[in-house]
């Protein structure tokens, strides 16, 4: 990339993915203003580090920066009450696994589809999840990224992506159930 093109190239590679960056930031911060703050900081960082960007996956690169910026922002603001960040043990794995077993043998898929039609219910359930679960579901289901891309963005091995994704889905299902029962 030549110096004269660094402006347009940055725009082509990174600003193209501004929607993805904003979507992730919004789901992580759960607040429109905070999301814009995080995206702005992230884009500024991305701009500064752009010369060091050698890959061909601008979206994954930018999303990784958004994610890191969010964590910096979080330690500065400490307001994410529902999630004990990235503490795998705190997530209540056994309970989740147990309920997952129930589901495997007892749910009617039709019913789940019907419930899913209630978009607000799904959104509320998603927002209740710990940040690491929200993040991985957004990357997989809303961004439709591959496990490999997710592993790069989140900075964990492939195996962790698979197990975390599976626990995130199980946990979301529990949240949807709980809401639906109310």
């Amino acid at each position, binding site marked *: 990339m030549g110096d004269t093109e660094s402006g347009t190239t940055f725009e082509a590679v990174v600003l193209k993915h501004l929607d993805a960056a904003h979507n992730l930031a919004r789901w992580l911060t759960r607040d429109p203003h905070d999301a814009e703050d995080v995206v702005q*900081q992230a*884009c500024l960082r991305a701009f500064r580090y752009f010369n060091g960007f050698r890959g061909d996956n601008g979206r994954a690169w930018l999303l990784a920066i958004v994610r890191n910026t969010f964590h910096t922002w979080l330690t500065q603001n400490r307001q994410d009450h529902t999630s004990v960040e990235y503490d795998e043990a705190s997530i209540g794995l056994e309970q989740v696994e147990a309920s997952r077993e129930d589901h495997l043998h007892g749910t009617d898929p039709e019913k789940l589809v019907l419930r899913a039609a209630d978009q607000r219910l799904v959104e509320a359930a998603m927002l209740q999840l710990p940040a690491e679960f929200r993040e991985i579901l957004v990357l997989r289901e809303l961004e439709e990224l591959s496990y490999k891309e997710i592993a790069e963005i989140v900075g964990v091995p492939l195996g962790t992506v698979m197990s975390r994704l599976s626990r995130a889905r199980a946990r979301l299902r529990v949240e949807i159930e709980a809401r639906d029962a109310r």
Partner: protein
Amino acid sequence: MSTTTCDEIRGLIPLYADGELDLDRALSLEKHIEGCATCAAALQEHRALSKAIRTAPYHRASDTLRAKLRAQLAAESSTVLPVPLRGSRDWSRWTLPMAASVALAVGISVLVSTRQSRDQLDDQLVASHVRSLQAAHLNDVASSDQHTVKPWFAGKLDYSPPVRDFAQQDYPLTGGRLDYLAHRQVAALVYRHRKHVINLYVWPSTDGDEAPAAHVRDGYSLVHWCKDHMDYWAVSDLNPEELRGFAELQMAAVKDRADPDT
């Protein structure tokens, strides 16, 4: 199906639905599911959940944010990146006079280029210092503990900057962050002296040791020194003499380092 058990299939369903299964295993899963209602239901259920998640809102960036960012990046690029761009534009204005004095120009070109890169670095240092104060983005890691700040840089940089706290000398360490200067990522350590913020930029150098030298740029004091193959630049609105005092402290600390982790 006899070759693959239901348990195995259950484990593969998410990978299959996510398109992460290789062809062989995908085919054997499909074959199993044709003859197994329970596993077929499990797959259907998985897909239903996936579909449900996809109804969640996708928050696109607003046009306002987009516009704001473009403006911000334009401002940023005029201070940081296109130093060569701006240089080349200026240069074209001087083409004619310069052509008339090619011999002279060649004679002093070495001097000029060193001088220019120094000026550019000064500009970048001051811009970075000012930005760190404006953007409320002074610290990526906020801590007065050198044993917290130093490890934070591990894995983010390909070198390990010496980090020391000088709270007793009234220059407390308040944190650190990554910055981009001189075409590389650098460590920025943040100190305070009374109400003044000091940004200390550190990166590896091939030069020998150099004693602290102070100068003023756009009203900010800059002090540069080299020690143990590290380049140090301190930037602050402190007066140059005080900032040089800070540099001496830093330099002395590197000299008598007894701490095994630095």
